[in-house]
């Protein structure tokens, strides 16, 4: 009975709490972040995303880079997956000269001196992210050329 009462109490909340629909826009270049589906401003204000109801999530340990251009010099599956999925964050952190994504990339590429790595990436930003249309493979290969 207790269970029922509490459940009813929350019906109202849930009906307003239309859980956010999230479209995963994955890609190989910039702009691969998750776009929020804000079709309704009112619902947006009320939504709970309590349980992140994503029908498209998988038990994914497979590579997320199958649709991407292949790297020429860097053969490191984890690094490729990571860069493909974090192109934007990585660009920001390289430009600023520090950050968790840059440190993560250093770890994946087995770079000892993370500080020096971050500085080198920053001063070479324009030769890593050579244009607005660069892809993961370009970024990794360009980094390996520094």
């Amino acid at each position, binding site marked *: 009975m207790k269970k029922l009462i509490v459940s009813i109490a929350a019906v109202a*909340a849930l009906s307003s709490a239309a859980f956010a629909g999230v479209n995963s826009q994955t890609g190989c270049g910039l702009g691969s972040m998750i776009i929020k589906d804000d079709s309704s401003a009112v619902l947006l204000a009320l939504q709970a*995303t309590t349980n992140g109801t994503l029908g498209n999530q998988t038990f994914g340990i497979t590579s997320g880079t199958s649709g991407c251009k292949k790297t020429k010099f860097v053969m490191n599956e984890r690094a490729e*997956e990571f860069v493909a999925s974090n192109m934007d964050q990585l660009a920001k952190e390289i430009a600023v000269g520090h950050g968790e994504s840059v440190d993560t990339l250093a770890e*994946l590429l087995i770079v000892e001196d993370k500080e020096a790595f971050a500085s080198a990436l920053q001063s070479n930003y324009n030769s890593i992210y050579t244009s607005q249309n660069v892809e993961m493979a370009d970024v990794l290969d360009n980094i390996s050329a520094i």
Partner: protein
Amino acid sequence: MSILVSANVDDYLNLAKEKNLSDSRYWHILLHMPSDESEIDDKAFFLSPDGNIDAQAELDATIEALVNDRVLDDNATACKFPARKWWLVKELGMKNLPEVKCKAFDTLMKKVDPKAASLVFPSAYINSPASMFGHTFIRIDSSYKSKMLSYAINYAANADSSTENGMVFAIKGLVGGYYGNYSLLPYYEKIKEYRDSEERDIWEYDLDLNEEQMQQMLRHIWEIHDTYSWYYFFTENCSYNMLWLIEAAKPTVHLREYFNYQVIPPETIHAAISEGAIIQRHYRPARRSKLLAYEDHLNDNEIKKVFALAKEEEDIQTFLEDKEKDTQSKRYILEASSEFIEYDFLAGDISADVYRKRLHDILGARSSLGKGEKIDIPIPKDPMNGHRALRLRTEAGVRDDEAIGFLGVRPANHDITDSDVGFLRGTQIEFFNFLFSYGENDFNVEEASVINIVSLAPRTKFFKPISWRLNTGWDRNYLSESTKFTSNASVGLTWENDIGYMYLLADALFYTDRDLTAGIGGIAGLVGYQGRDFKTNLEVTQRIFDTGYDQLLFSASQHYRHAQNISFSLSYDYVQKFDEDWDTVKFTFDYFF
């Protein structure tokens, strides 16, 4: 050969009976069976036809299948149920089991490389009080130092909210109309989802689990990952299912027992803390929190530059060459600007092409300015230092020269007069808040709100949100002697500074008093803080009704947080009713649990 094998089976079956393994807590954990029936609804999870209701039959069937496995690849019982196998081998000293090759599972184990784990809680996001109920999932850490490379195991209802309407969705969720599924994703995908897209701060609570325990958790995850169960929003939900995983890893922690009738996600972390299962906490700020930190370092003119650069209204080269500005200010402006470009893109205000061009230009400029100072993002109070969900309230006071007592109960969750340590300021969500009063020979229901949500989101230099309030239920604050069913909706603006916040709202409401009565009004409120434990709430409301009457309401309260779950307050309420006034002065004691 076959005689030898079957003799083996009987030995193990007898030993298992002798040790009473089918009644053991751990076997029930592996079957997700709180008492007599498993919560897993997928028949494929059981080897015995009655396995979901008969722990003994399932145990026997598992032992037999492990010994007699004829299939030796991924479809072998040993490969499908590695956690059961590991435990039974340990308990029964099983030897010479068929040699199986579990390619899929071994690949998973190698890639995930489990060493440690954290419970992860994305906290409420601005203008969405319902999100404070939140979500939790487990992050499985590997040998990598970077937590971004960890994996997140997540349980969710498999529903497509874009094709179902909200009400259908809610009802189906309550009665179990959706399947729940597990997903395993790199943690950086979850960071992108919560920190960047939903603008929610992420709290990570490291669990006291070692490598051996984590391997067993992953084995168990493998057993259940492909099964389905009906998903119940309030009981068998995302957070609740994480408790099974933790107990499968470390059966000496008893987490499920904290929950009888509902599982509010953050409450599972409270339970883990009570069990001593949390060893450390970490904060990962949302993009919004980062931008608010930039605000503190930028003056009005610099804020304008942030927007102008983000919208390509100012030439970047001219900006870089500006000799009036120091380099550090330029760095901050460009950094904030790059975040805003992303913000605009996520909001759908600019196309992907425009986004890429703007971001690329800004970041190129930023990289030319060297390293600079890291922006310092203040760490808010840990949500786990906040009060618990269920509130019991006792009050004593005087109303119109008569002594009056009050008793209240509220199952969930928080209102704007409660201490907001650990909560997002100005955010309220209440379900079924009951308050009863007892005066001289007079018992009354003062309030029985069904739902009462408030979102007072402060306007900042960067963010200009609208504040709002929704309330429906029964209360006495209207032009009537008795308690009436009412609904009201308000909308307005909120501003904040170092000492507190203030809000102005326009209000529309109706209630039934024989006829339907409607009204409009204005609300002004002020909330001030004196350190962490004291706060003052003031609110004045003026209403005009379609019956021609008007009404003034005023409330003032001083709140003191004595401990995490104990508060006291002193309040004064004034309610005008036709020619009469009600004055209530009362002292309140609140206990949360």
